[in-house]
């Protein structure tokens, strides 16, 4: 490679890194400036000590876990069945799972409110539990493209048909096949889907705000509008969570290589 080409490569890389990291550094630096003249973690301490932060964050974590459970319950059997019995339906199912990427969350939530309002046949918004459930359903829809893709990719790495038949010939029914054969073998894929779902749910604003639930996203927005340093500390925390999720995906993928069979 010529010196020129090598130099250009480095410049492009440095520009990219700078473009990404300088604002982040600025953000982090500013979040540390809550005390005049010195760097301190005051803003972080204030945020973490804030009971509203604790309440909204734990609410969103619980919602994320519920969403992940819904996602796994819906996506794993569907992707498995499509691969096993209806391979012709794959493009259609894939298209369906991609819809949440093109339909804005606000459309989904208005649809929900119209369909499930207190004067409808299923008045989910009438109770707190109902609204929470509705929010979890909404999150599940938003996370669908990621979850489905992750699980489908996982299923591609194993011989679904033969493993299913092997389990059947050993006396296993569908539930046993799904829980003891298919799920454990696509677990790394399911987990990476789960972490993506987690990252999406933690930062989601539209659904939670319009359904008026005390989630982390609306809290983030509220703090941002009213406090000087805390929102930046919060942003750094949010970034850290997202990155931790990405790191966990990497870790799980690496762990799964050790488990992988020659097929």
């Amino acid at each position, binding site marked *: 490679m010529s010196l020129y080409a090598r130099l250009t490569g480095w410049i492009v890389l440095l520009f990219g890194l700078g473009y990404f990291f300088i604002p982040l550094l600025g953000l982090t630096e500013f979040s540390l400036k809550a005390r005049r003249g010195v760097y301190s973690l005051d803003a972080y301490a204030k945020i973490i000590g804030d009971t509203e932060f604790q309440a909204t964050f734990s609410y969103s974590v619980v919602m994320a876990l519920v969403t992940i459970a819904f996602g796994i319950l819906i996506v794993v059997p569907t992707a498995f069945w499509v691969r096993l019995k209806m391979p012709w339906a794959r493009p259609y199912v894939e298209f369906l799972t991609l819809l949440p990427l093109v339909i804005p969350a606000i459309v989904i939530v208005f649809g929900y409110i119209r369909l499930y309002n207190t004067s409808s046949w299923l008045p989910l918004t009438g109770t707190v539990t109902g609204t929470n459930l509705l929010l979890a359903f909404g999150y599940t829809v938003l996370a669908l493209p990621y979850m489905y893709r992750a699980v489908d990719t996982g299923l591609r790495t194993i011989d679904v048909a033969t493993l299913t*038949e*092997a389990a*059947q*010939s*050993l006396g*296993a029914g569908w539930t046993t096949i799904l829980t003891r054969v298919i799920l454990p073998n696509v677990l790394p894929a399911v987990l990476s889907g789960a972490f993506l779902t987690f990252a999406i749910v933690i930062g989601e604003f539209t659904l939670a705000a319009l359904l008026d639930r005390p989630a982390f996203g609306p809290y983030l927005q509220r703090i941002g509008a009213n406090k000087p340093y805390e929102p930046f500390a919060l942003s750094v925390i949010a970034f850290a969570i997202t990155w931790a999720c990405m790191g966990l995906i990497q870790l799980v993928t690496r762990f799964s290589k050790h*488990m992988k*069979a*020659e097929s």
Partner: protein
Amino acid sequence: MPYLEIARLEKSFGANRVVTDFNLGVEQGEFISLLGPSGCGKTTVLRMVAGFERPSSGAIRIGSEDVVGKRPNQRNIGMVFQAYALFPNLTVAENVGFGLKIKGARRDEITARVAEMLALIGLPDLGARYPFQLSGGQQQRVALARALAPKPRVLLLDEPLSALDAKVRVSLRNEIRAIQRDLGITTIFVTHDQEEALSISDRIVVMNAGIADQVGTPFEIYNRPTTRFVANFVGQLNLFKADGAGRIGGVAVGQGDFAARPEAVHLGREAESDIVLPATVEEVHFLGSVIRVTAAAAGARIALDTFNRPDMPPPAVGSAVELSLSSRDLIPLK
């Protein structure tokens, strides 16, 4: 009454009929091979017995119980697949014990049976390994142990040796046969490899285009093929056409086409051979104990095998020789 009975079995995928009027009775403890080229319907028959495909019509009875309406997991049939199909997330011992666990066997029962099975396949120390840590041959042996552990009524083997290299293939097929004899389990073995089928089966079903062309012992299939397809597919063959007067080499044999195995044709005149044909040697392959000679005679290429003898060098290519064979060894082709 046979233990496993398949009667008038038919299977079509849309307009494509893959199995036609398939009938077979398998005695308890018998080892049957379904032999045929790819696409002949042999795997489809096996999958219908296993319950993975539903027959278009016909009956499958195991121990006089009709199993056609039963799901695969209710049939108590052991199956070994070409691609091993071990569960990658389970250890060897967990794989072997899987069927027993589903049946709800007690833990100590499972442990004992797993140990017994692992000893049977000669891998008593590999219980804690994962499938990816085993060679292909070992994986297939574990798959066999897994299929046998729940004591199935019938064992189905779907080309279990195709993915293995030649040496392992031969040793494993002998092992499979020894274990099958040992346990006395009724077995159907699907293969496209005639040598495999001939060497380990009690009986062979030669299949062609969805039809069972001939059912018989390896000896019968090889020496008395009843159709042209079977004669061609199993073993090597020399074709002879009788002349207008129904004669070959001057000996009356009747009208039509005939075939003879390479070992039935002799180099030079033999005492009991009545047909003698002048020939020119075209190819000589020295294979060690056997010498395969190809010669042109009566307008056809004839292959013959002779045993190596240190005092008799093989004929030179291009030399004129006489070939002889007995008219009793001719196989009439339908």
